[in-house]
C-alpha cells in the first residue's frame, strides 16, 4: 500500500508487513499505511467494505524510537495515529496507521463515519495533543480543564514526586 494508494478498500489486500512468522494465526491483522490526505477516504472505503465497527483509536509518540519497521513508501513521522477497525461479518481486523508530523499534529476526524470514535479522539487529543479537524467537541476528556501539556508525549515527564524518607525535609 504505497503512498499514492487508490482509495480502494484494503480488505483482502495482503498484509503490508512481511508475514510475522511468530504471531498465532488469529492475531495477524492487516495493516494499512495511508497518507494523511487519503486517510479519511480509506476509512470510508473500509466502512463500505464491511468493517462495521471502529474498535479503537489511539496514538503513539515515536520521538525516542525513530527506527521502526515501516513499509518502504512511508516516511516515519513523530506521531502515529492507529485506528483499529473490526468487521463482524468477515471476522477480520485492520489497523490503519497514519503518520502525523510533530510540527503540525492535525488529522481528519472520522466521527461522521464512526460516531463511536468521538470519545477516543478526544482522549488522543487530551493525552497526545493531536487535533482532529471536523470533530464536534474537541476538548479535553481525562485531564482537568486547565492542565498544561499532553502527558503521554515522550517529552512530558512522569511527574514523579521524589519519595522522601521520614527525616528528609520536604513537603510532607
Amino acid at each position, binding site marked *: 500500500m504505497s503512498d499514492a494508494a487508490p482509495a480502494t478498500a484494503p480488505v483482502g489486500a495482503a498484509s503490508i508487513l512481511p508475514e510475522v512468522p511468530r504471531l498465532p494465526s488469529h492475531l495477524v491483522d492487516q495493516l494499512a499505511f495511508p497518507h494523511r490526505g487519503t486517510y479519511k477516504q480509506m476509512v470510508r472505503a473500509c466502512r463500505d467494505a464491511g468493517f462495521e465497527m471502529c474498535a479503537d483509536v489511539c496514538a503513539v509518540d515515536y520521538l525516542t524510537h525513530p527506527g521502526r519497521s515501516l513499509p518502504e513508501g512511508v516516511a516515519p513521522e513523530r506521531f502515529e495515529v492507529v485506528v483499529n477497525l473490526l468487521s463482524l461479518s468477515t471476522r477480520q481486523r485492520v489497523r490503519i496507521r497514519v503518520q502525523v508530523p510533530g510540527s503540525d499534529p492535525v488529522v481528519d476526524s472520522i466521527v461522521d463515519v464512526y460516531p463511536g470514535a468521538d470519545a477516543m479522539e478526544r482522549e488522543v487529543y487530551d493525552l497526545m495533543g493531536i487535533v482532529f479537524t471536523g470533530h464536534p467537541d474537541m476538548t479535553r476528556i481525562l*485531564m*482537568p480543564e486547565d492542565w498544561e501539556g499532553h502527558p503521554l508525549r515522550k517529552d512530558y515527564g512522569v511527574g514523579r514526586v521524589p519519595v522522601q524518607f521520614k527525616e528528609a525535609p520536604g513537603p*510532607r
Partner: protein
Amino acid sequence: MGIEDLQHNFLTGRLEDLVKWARRNSVWPATFGLACCAIEMMAVGAADYDISRLGMEVFRASPRQADLMVVAGRVSQKMAPVLRQVYDQMMEPKWVISMGVCASTGGMFNNYAIVQGVDQIVPVDVYAPGCPPSPETLLHAILTLHEKIRTGEITRRPGSAVKAGEQATGGWTPTVPDAVRVATPR
C-alpha cells in the same frame, strides 16, 4: 456500700464519656468509593464482614448525614477539589479514614495524575494499609478510629497549648491544618 463498689456503668459514666460512647457507636460512613478499594469497602458493608455490627449500618450518600469519610481509592488531580468540597460539607464532628496505599501515599502511581497522599487535602485520622486492604484490615482501621474517638478528648479547650499550624488531634474535629497544597505539577 461505698461509691467504689458501684460498677462503672452507663449511669455513673461522665457526660463526655456518654457523648463519646454515642458517637463511637454510630459513625455513619459517607460513600466516597473511588477505585478498587471501594469494592472492598462494599464487601465490608455486605453480609460476610458486616460493619453494621459496629454501628455503621448505613452508607450515607450525602455528606450532610455522614460522620466518617472513607477515602477508598486513588485520588486524581481532577478529583482533589471535589474531595475537599465534600469534606467541607460534612457535618461536625467528622473523621477521615484513608483506605489503601493509593489514598495514603499515592501508592504505586507516583506520577502526574495522582495526589501523593490524601493528607495533603484533608486531615486524616486513620491510615489503612494494603492494596486493596482486605476487609479485615479495614475493620481494624475502623476499630482504631473507635479507639481514637473513645480516648481522644471531645472538644479542644481554648487556651490549651496549640502550636500554630499543628493539627490538634482528638475526638473533636481537628482545626483545619494548613492544608498545604503541595504544588504537584499542575
